[in-house]
């Protein structure tokens, strides 16, 4: 079983104070901490678990600048067998479609029975790359997947619908599966495991080495263009209760009581 896991290097914006840059087309990212996209962490773990059960080879790949090497190395420590780092300055400014094009070109020439990735990334909130990549490769795909089982030449899994309902679905391999968070428990990585992979070489491939046409990458290969980025006005919606902790708690308790929130 050859498993390729596509992972993304994303800024942690969940609790950071975000500032729009001077051009008004992105946020300032210099002060943000980057890490592997939360959803993709589960994809790496799932790949390693499938390999441990069935044998095979896990390859991790990302389209990301230099710093992302750290995330690839961590994936090796988690049990992946090899990692590839795809980067070229010309990749800067790629949208989901361009990233899918880059990954498709890289994966096309390599054996792949199963491609795993996360359903969404927290930066673009787009959820596009998996499904696009699968169609570019001509294989079936699904998102929001949990509880994966490989059955011979098929993959059977559950996926989430709304309201707690799920559906059980089966696909022929090769296939792409974009996982939901929570489908497994990503393992703790020991210092020993990190040391073991410290000297493993992680090849970095540029557009020429991938064999990618210039028109397929960066802003030129993208289809969506950001015209303007802005922060919604602060405090829009809620009345923000201000005062000391004692005061705000007392006021909130009072409101809860009035609205039937103390039963």
């Amino acid at each position: 079983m050859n498993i390729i896991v596509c992972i993304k290097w994303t800024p942690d914006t969940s609790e950071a104070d975000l500032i729009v840059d001077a051009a008004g087309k992105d946020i300032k990212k210099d002060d943000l901490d980057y890490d592997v996209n939360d959803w993709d962490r589960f994809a790496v773990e799932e790949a390693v678990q499938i390999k441990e059960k069935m044998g095979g080879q896990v390859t991790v790949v990302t389209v990301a600048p230099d710093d992302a090497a750290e995330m690839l190395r961590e994936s090796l420590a988690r049990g992946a067998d090899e990692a590839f780092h795809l980067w070229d300055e010309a990749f800067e400014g790629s949208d989901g479609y361009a990233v899918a094009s880059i990954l498709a070109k890289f994966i096309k020439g390599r054996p792949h029975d199963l491609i795993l990735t996360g359903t969404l990334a927290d930066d673009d909130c787009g959820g596009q790359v998996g499904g696009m990549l699968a169609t570019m490769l001509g294989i079936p795909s699904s998102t929001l997947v949990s509880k994966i089982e490989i059955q011979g030449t098929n993959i059977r899994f559950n996926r989430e619908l709304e309201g707690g309902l799920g559906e059980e679905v089966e696909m022929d391999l090769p296939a792409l599966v974009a996982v939901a968070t929570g489908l497994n428990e990503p393992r703790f990585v020991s210092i020993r495991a990190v040391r073991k992979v410290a000297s493993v070489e992680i090849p970095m491939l540029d557009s020429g080495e991938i064999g990618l046409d210039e028109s397929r990458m960066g802003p030129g290969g993208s289809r969506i263009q950001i015209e303007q980025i802005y922060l919604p006005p602060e405090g829009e919606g809620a009345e923000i209760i201000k005062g000391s902790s004692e005061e705000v708690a007392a006021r909130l308790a009072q409101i809860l009581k009035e609205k039937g929130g103390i039963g």
Partner: protein
Amino acid sequence: MKNIFVLAEHRKEQLRDITWEAVAAGRKLGADLGADLTCLLLAEKVDDMAQSLAGECRKVLAIEDPSFYTLNSEALAKALVSVLKDMGPYMLVMGNSNSVMDLAPGLSVALDATLATDCFGFEVRDGRPMALRQMYSYKVNALVSFKEAERIVVTLRGGAFSFGPSGQGAGTIEKLSSPLGDEKPRKRFVNYVEAEKGDVDIAAADIIVSVGRGIGEEPDISVFESLAESMGGVLACSRPIVDKNLLPKYHQVGTSGVEVKPKVYLALGISGAFQHIGGIKGSPLIAAINKDPRAPIFRVAQYGIVGDLNELVPILENKIKALKKS
């Protein structure tokens, strides 16, 4: 732009509410771009659903095939490519449901179209449509344009477009024969899986205290259980809490968890991703405590406190207990 197509979404032979939201968005886009609106219905049996759609849409294109019993993305993509390939410039509008998340990205590639997902608004500038969506943990708004604007696919944020019946009367229904051949499908629906039932039913609760990622890496859940108990309510949570196995899945509020409508919803450390907000629509009182003043939850809450939960929760519980005694 010549045509606006709206994909009707259904489950277990019923149209889903998000279909009407997509019709509302499609109508508005049609008016702004001077384009005609057509509903696309692909189902195992189309008659009843096509009738309902024709009450609100001038034109309904319907295709029957057993493969469309669910919104199987492989079957739908194949059929939609066959229907749309000769349609000239168009925009395809769909709800950003969990089924469409499976469909839209691959379909956009197969149609050679530009895709924007999870849009909550549209603008038209110089006759060009642009979409509003969110980025960076749903904290930043982005206005995006479509570079190849001949074929556009958009998916819509649930709840962002409200539908009102137009009362325009019956539209036409055209049935097309199924373009799916004998080729064996590579993706097959097996069956529905019902949610696991637990010892509490948060959907039935009047008072909910709900906790999210912001309660910390190794939180003491009993602190929040105690607060919920003092309020006479139940404890619920957002997705990250279930992912970390801190509470069972049946405590999870959101579109892929349980949709709730309590009298009072107190959100603690919940940032308010749209999947979560989708599960609390219609709750009369939403109050939130979060340390990030820009957390999206404050846009749907009526009352908010920006502060530290570890400090505030015990004080709040004391105040509540004091109010109960008085």
